[in-house]
């Protein structure tokens, strides 16, 4: 399954809930304020790192750039554009949006 998360992990528990319920082999796409979970050296970076074993992480690059986070994204997080977002929804059987 493809999961999307649009909330900052510092604001709400959305990101945490998502990774707790994402099966091995899932993808999590960070969009809108959700891209803050992709920041290097933050309070949640270790959690993201740990989840990377089972989950593939993506971040929507236009949202990363909008927020001035270019160059500050953790290694292992794949940046995609909107076309890439669409491709992910096609690649996985279904999408769950975590709001």
């Amino acid at each position, binding site marked *: 399954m493809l999961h999307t998360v*649009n909330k900052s992990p510092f604001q709400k528990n959305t990101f945490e809930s998502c990774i707790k319920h994402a099966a091995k082999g899932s993808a999590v796409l960070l969009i809108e304020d959700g891209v803050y979970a992709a920041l290097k050296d933050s309070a949640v970076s270790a959690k993201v790192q740990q989840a990377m074993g089972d989950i593939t992480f993506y971040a929507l690059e236009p949202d990363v750039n909008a927020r001035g986070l270019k160059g500050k994204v953790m290694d292992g997080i794949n940046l995609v*554009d909107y076309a890439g977002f669409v491709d992910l929804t096609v690649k996985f059987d279904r999408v769950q949006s975590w709001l």
Partner: protein
Amino acid sequence: MKFTIQINEGPYTHQASDTAYNFATAALAAGHEIYRVFFYHDGVNNATRLSTPPQDDRNVINRWSDLAAKHNLDLVVCVAAAQRRGIADADEAKRNGKNADNIAPGFRISGLGQLIEGGIQSDRLVVFGD
């Protein structure tokens, strides 16, 4: 692929409508079909004709109307949510005793069944919200 898109939030306050719009245009550019865009909760506010955003910013409502016209999209506004929030077409206004309607071009008002039907008929249902 056939997509149904659900938008739960209104224009400007949340990024939901913007992200959905950018997703929709990318999907269309890639040759996919948008079966329906369904506006629920405050998402119905994307359908007001009376929005006047600043000139130097995107016009969220007109963008949807224009995309619908260009690609023959089905933009559906939930009737119950619209009634609560004051989005009406001429029929709804008349039926509910209102002295004005405000729906933007390209949008139509219908029931929640249209969302479910979208989920049944489409390959993917993607939700954009708060």
